[in-house]
């Protein structure tokens, strides 16, 4: 058994995900279900193990219960190891007192001891709110070839979207000359994916410097990266050409789910060479009823489907009764959709019950996305107009018969 790891990954999973409410009301964003079978965090974790990185520290803070249960000892990702493996790193109390993670950089700073235990040459920083399949090995090779201190993975985005991202300007060799966090007038279209590789010594050095700066927000994008750039360190951009989506908003979360549909989906989940691993429930195979209709969709198992489903993502243990119409929607696990109900261009959180005849949202193109938070019951015949986000039973009172 080796005494060190070449590269250790640190996965920032403590964010609140406030723009994903109601899906993140009682769970951390990385634990939000995705693609019928997965949770968001399965993507970076599977990318790690598929890239040969078997040591991952997962930094948790906000609503960690469900996430911790889900991660366990990392068995689903083959990360239950004696040396290395998956470790959950919550905020803790030290001799000098206890402190929450104050920012992304501070979270890593507080866990440098974990990193140094494996004596890695490189540290990979990841976040828990992106859906993508990426071989980090190729990025690491480039980092090594460039003799870089830090390599930032970027994608080429349309110019009109560039101001939503951290934007890099590079010279001809790919070396970063300028970095602007959410610039108003972007002068490049290379957007940071929030995936960084640092050489461990430099990371340790700059995190320590950042700690001493009372004006710092302790954020990689805002503070650490600009500081390194100003100091003239060797910073490189790594241009990634594959599928990547930030699922930080309800609309982008919905859109990323839709990317898994089609005969040749943009987000191809059936690739045996790049499997996305996940923790399983014990579910029997799905039953399709005699009158079921099902097109351009993906469906989990353990449920039964008697109605009509098109262009949708249906998770496991979902019961869909007769005469229902579900289109362009994301239905999470353990939902029940009663006879004659319609669910169109909507997201249903886990364990939502739609009683018979209720109408949720409107056909795609006919208004905004409708979202029903987890554990809610929409009463018989209730109509939830398009563009509504239902977060709590009180929200339902406005819609007549309401729910529970």
């Amino acid at each position, binding site marked *: 058994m080796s005494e060190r790891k070449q590269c250790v990954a640190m996965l920032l999973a403590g964010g609140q995900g406030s723009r994903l409410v109601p899906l993140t009301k009682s769970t951390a964003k990385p634990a939000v279900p995705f693609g019928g079978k997965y949770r968001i965090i399965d993507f970076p974790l599977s990318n790690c193990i598929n890239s040969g990185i078997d040591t991952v520290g997962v930094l948790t803070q906000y609503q960690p219960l469900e996430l911790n249960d889900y991660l366990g000892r990392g068995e689903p990702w083959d990360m239950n190891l004696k040396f290395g493996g998956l470790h959950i790193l919550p905020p803790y109390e030290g001799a000098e007192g206890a402190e929450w993670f104050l920012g992304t950089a501070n979270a890593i700073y507080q866990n440098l001891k974990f990193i140094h235990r494996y004596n890695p040459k490189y540290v990979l920083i990841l976040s828990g709110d992106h859906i993508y399949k990426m071989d980090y090995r190729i990025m690491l090779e480039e980092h090594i070839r460039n003799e870089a201190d830090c390599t930032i993975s970027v994608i080429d985005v349309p110019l009109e979207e560039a101001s939503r991202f951290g934007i890099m300007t590079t010279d001809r060799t790919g070396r970063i000359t300028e970095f602007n966090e959410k610039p108003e007038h972007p002068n490049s279209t290379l957007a940071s994916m929030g995936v960084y590789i640092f050489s461990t010594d430099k990371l340790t050095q700059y995190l320590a410097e950042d700690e001493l700066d009372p004006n710092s927000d302790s954020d990689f994008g805002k503070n650490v990266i600009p500081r390194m750039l100003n100091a003239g360190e060797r910073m490189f951009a790594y241009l990634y050409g594959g599928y990547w989506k930030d699922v930080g908003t309800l609309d982008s979360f919905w859109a990323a789910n839709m990317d898994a549909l089609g005969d040749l989906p943009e987000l191809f*989940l*059936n690739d045996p060479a790049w499997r996305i691993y996940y923790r399983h429930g*014990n579910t029997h195979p*799905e039953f399709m*009823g005699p009158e079921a209709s099902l097109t*351009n969709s993906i469906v*989990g*198992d353990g449920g039964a489907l008697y109605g009509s489903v098109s262009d949708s993502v249906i998770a496991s243990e979902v019961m869909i009764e007769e005469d229902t119409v579900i289109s362009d929607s994301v239905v999470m696990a353990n939902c029940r959709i009663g006879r004659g109900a319609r669910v169109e261009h909507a997201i249903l959180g886990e364990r939502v019950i739609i009683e018979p005849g209720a109408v949720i949202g409107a056909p795609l193109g006919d208004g905004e996305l409708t979202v029903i938070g987890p554990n809610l019951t929409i009463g018989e015949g209730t109509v939830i107009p398009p563009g509504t986000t239902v977060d709590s039973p009180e929200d339902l009172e406005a819609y007549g018969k309401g729910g529970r």
Partner: protein
Amino acid sequence: MDAAGIILADNIADLSAQLTEQRTLAALPFGGKYRLIDFSLSNMVNADIQNVGVILSQQYDSVMHHVQSGMEWDLDRKRGGLRYLTPLSSAGATITEGTRVEILRNNLFYIRQLSEKYIVLTGTGYAGALDFAALVEHHIEKNADITCLFSRNVVNQTPLYKRIGLVTDRDDRIISFDPFQFQALSSELTMNTCVIEREYLMRMLDTLTRNPRGLTPLEALQDLIDKRRVYAYFTDEMVIYLEDLSSYLSGSLALLDYDVRRQLFHAESGPVLTKTKDSPATRYGKEAKVSNSIIADGAVIEGEVRNSVIFRGARVRKNAIVENSVIMQDSTVGEGAHLNHAILDKEVMIEDGRLLSGYLTHPFFCRKGERI
């Protein structure tokens, strides 16, 4: 539960010979994502039996690969848990095509090591959620030496107790059986599932193998029934027998019945556990049509599927029609092909436009890895 379990993962007869050519019956895929041993193992752990020996006799690679450490059944324990009992695993053991008595005798060392009072023995030729805890309770209540389980609710065959001409008294004590039928079914002694006191089993194995009076196994069994308290435990829990191709097809298609699924997958005794595969969700294409079918995760359906069971990772391409059939893991039905009453074993490739049809009693069968 003061009972240990022993699963006989053997091929006691040439049942479903084609399906078990390359694997033991215990590893036979069934119901979209299971293998037969899942039912025996789940029944054990659902009865809180935490020490389970799996006796393997031949072609057991696929069983071991499937069950592995028993993790999915919470049987990877430091104390007890899963134990594989392979041929030649102990001194004095012999490779035997022999009777279950001989097979058990070879594993006497394991039975001796256990400390539980009772042993639940079960085979692997069935799919069913059976409450073994109730069986043991019944055994204790009757103060029996051996209690054999029989289901009155067999979906696709005549119940075993009728086939072997079992005669019981009013208290369900077994008086006799029809030796000719019994022999024809070549199940010896265990009749698939029974419970027996461990100490008594050890003594009995000793006596039966030494057989001082030179009785045939059948005579020895009748002798046992005459002298000891051998009881039948009749249950209405549903069982699907899987003995040959036609019972495999009819048993698979029985799952399309709501009541059968409910009794198998939502039994009070607990769920059927199996090895996980990290399959993605099932993907349905733009022209997919499905009705009255069981479709496991990881399958890709672009054509039409009716009254069928589709396993994990199987693929039905555009304009293909699959009806009344079973398509096992990772098999592909090419564009425009039409299958009726077919069973495709794993990794079969049906090329575009093929028309293949059997009948319920004579299913069209493709061996693992074949290409048509």
